[in-house]
């Protein structure tokens, strides 16, 4: 087991290196250099020259890549081009917002997805099964940026139940400790702020959870059906165990193994979907930050933000693989 984990961690290094190469060279091999991208076509030659020098763009590419790597190893992600903020500082401020949103969305997806999946599997070919699987298919096919706007229209504009965007209402005081607003409100025992933060979280989280919920529901159903066909379930039923016990004590455990992997893989969907969701709801997370950077052509943020997200994603996937090997004794590790 330890050897397996070690090998997986060793594979991580070339993967991350490859990611950094792609991100670096994609920017530098595209037509027009970053200085031109930044200053526009009508910039003076002198301004271009100065900016190139400032950004180190006048050095050969491999030297630039070397410097880029050197900074990465020392965890120096540089400064943003427009606001001259440290990229790390920005990430530290924004990343908790994204995690708060993604984790809430993931919790919604697991709960709803598994409930619908289990009921559908136990009542296969029933009306509930057909409807929920059709719903799941619609969920997988949903343009979430549109769904978010529809939610906004219904729950904010028409019904006025939920705040239309942002993380906190103007005028609500919250002492920021960790940047996880829910956590901060709990730590500082700030009831009104907690209520307000939760209120703001509902719509974006449900929007973001749409696709993962659908995927988890479909996966749970098919995995559950697979297990329910097996002999040991028949035995359990023949012994006279209650339906509830058969499903929750005997079937669910084995059925959940592939579901756990699926859930782990949803982090990528969530981090990607966060760009769309955060943009719609003006949620000040990493996704919105990336979007703004793309709009303002802040290539430092694009480059290093992408690297950060991709690196995180690789590490999460590694964690999922290891977890999978741990919970599934049938997997043989050579």
């Amino acid at each position: 087991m330890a050897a397996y984990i070690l090998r997986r961690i060793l594979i991580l290094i070339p993967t991350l290196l490859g990611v950094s190469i792609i991100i670096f060279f994609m920017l530098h091999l595209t037509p027009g250099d970053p200085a031109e991208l930044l200053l526009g076509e009508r910039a003076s030659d002198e301004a271009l020259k100065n900016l190139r020098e400032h950004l180190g763009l006048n050095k050969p590419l491999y030297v630039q890549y070397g410097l880029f790597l050197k900074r990465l190893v020392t965890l120096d992600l540089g400064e943003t081009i427009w606001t001259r903020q440290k990229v790390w500082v920005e990430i530290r401020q924004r990343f908790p917002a994204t995690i708060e949103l993604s984790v809430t969305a993931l919790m919604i997806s697991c709960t709803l997805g598994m409930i619908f999946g289990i009921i559908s599997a136990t009542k296969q070919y029933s009306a509930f099964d057909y409807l929920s699987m059709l719903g799941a298919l619609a969920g997988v096919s949903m343009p979430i940026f549109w769904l978010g706007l529809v939610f906004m229209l219904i729950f904010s504009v028409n019904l006025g139940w939920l705040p239309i965007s942002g993380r906190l209402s103007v005028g609500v005081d919250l002492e920021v400790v960790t940047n996880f607003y829910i956590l901060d409100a709990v730590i500082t025992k700030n009831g009104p702020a907690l209520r307000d933060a939760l209120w703001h979280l509902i719509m974006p989280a449900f929007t973001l959870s749409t696709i993962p919920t659908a995927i988890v529901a479909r996966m749970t159903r098919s995995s559950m059906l697979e297990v329910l066909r097996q002999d040991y379930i028949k035995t359990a039923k023949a012994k006279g165990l209650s339906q509830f016990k058969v499903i929750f004590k005997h079937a669910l455990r084995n059925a959940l193994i592939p579901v756990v992997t699926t859930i782990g893989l949803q982090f990528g969907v969530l981090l990607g979907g966060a760009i769309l969701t955060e943009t719609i709801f003006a949620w000040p997370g990493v996704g919105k930050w990336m979007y703004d950077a793309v709009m303002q052509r802040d290539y430092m943020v694009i480059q290093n933000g992408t690297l950060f997200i991709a690196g995180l994603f690789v590490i999460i996937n590694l964690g999922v693989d290891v977890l999978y090997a741990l919970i599934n004794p049938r997997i043989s590790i050579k």
Partner: protein
Amino acid sequence: MAQKHPEDRHPMLDQLSQLWRNRTAVAGLVVIIVFILCGIFAPALSPHDPIDVALYDQLKPPAWSEGGSTKNILGTDDLGRDILSRIIYGARVSLLVALVSVGLAFCFGTIIGSISGYYKGRLDDIVMRGIDIILSFPYILLAIVVVAYLGPSLQNAMLAIAITYVPRFARIVRASVLEESEKDYVMAARAIGARDLRIIFVAILPNCMGPLIVQTTLSFASAILDAAALSFLGLGAQPPTPEWGADIARSRALILRASWVMTFPGLAILGAVLGFNLLGDGLRDALDPRLRD
């Protein structure tokens, strides 16, 4: 004439008849055909020019609501353009984007995957590592970055989607080729002196078509979705191109005044994507028995 045995039927006929019995798959196919027809015959079907600005007809609601008229059945946007016409023309744009990007990914993925699976060894290791690297970018982020660097346009969006879709095709083809290349008929082909390329493309690949067709159909669904998302973010189709995602982005500012402007393009995306997903699921049941549940 010799009597026909059931075994003489081509297996594809069985698969087709099974697909035909799957009502949801047929429904998906019907939806797709409707969208394809809309795309092909857009000039004949749409009541107005999709980019013609009509300032006297700004923000007309749909025909069935108060103030609407049959002139613009689904209403008009803030520039007075007919929404129905823009949706019909949008089918053309979305399907074309999906066709090009999935087509590119299919070709490159198949070539990479079959070579990797056929020659195995070192080459395979390196190629698969590269695939893993592309897969270590979260969904859509890579596409966003590619377009951000290349500049926002529909062509670049297609290219970006194609790049992000190569791995899924490469993996499927590789797995199939690995499995098939152990079989006797490949050895037979080799024994009679067929060249590697011939073995791969003439002997092996036709036997891997099942999972590939399924993946292609499902990729059409996600390509439409991703292209719309990129256009929504301003990275795909540029105005005044009638594109569903871009139209939704424009409608954001109108959410308080004219909700119909954003409603219909979204429904169009949902419908088209759902159609391909329904068909893809049905095809999977028919062509890939291993995945049947």
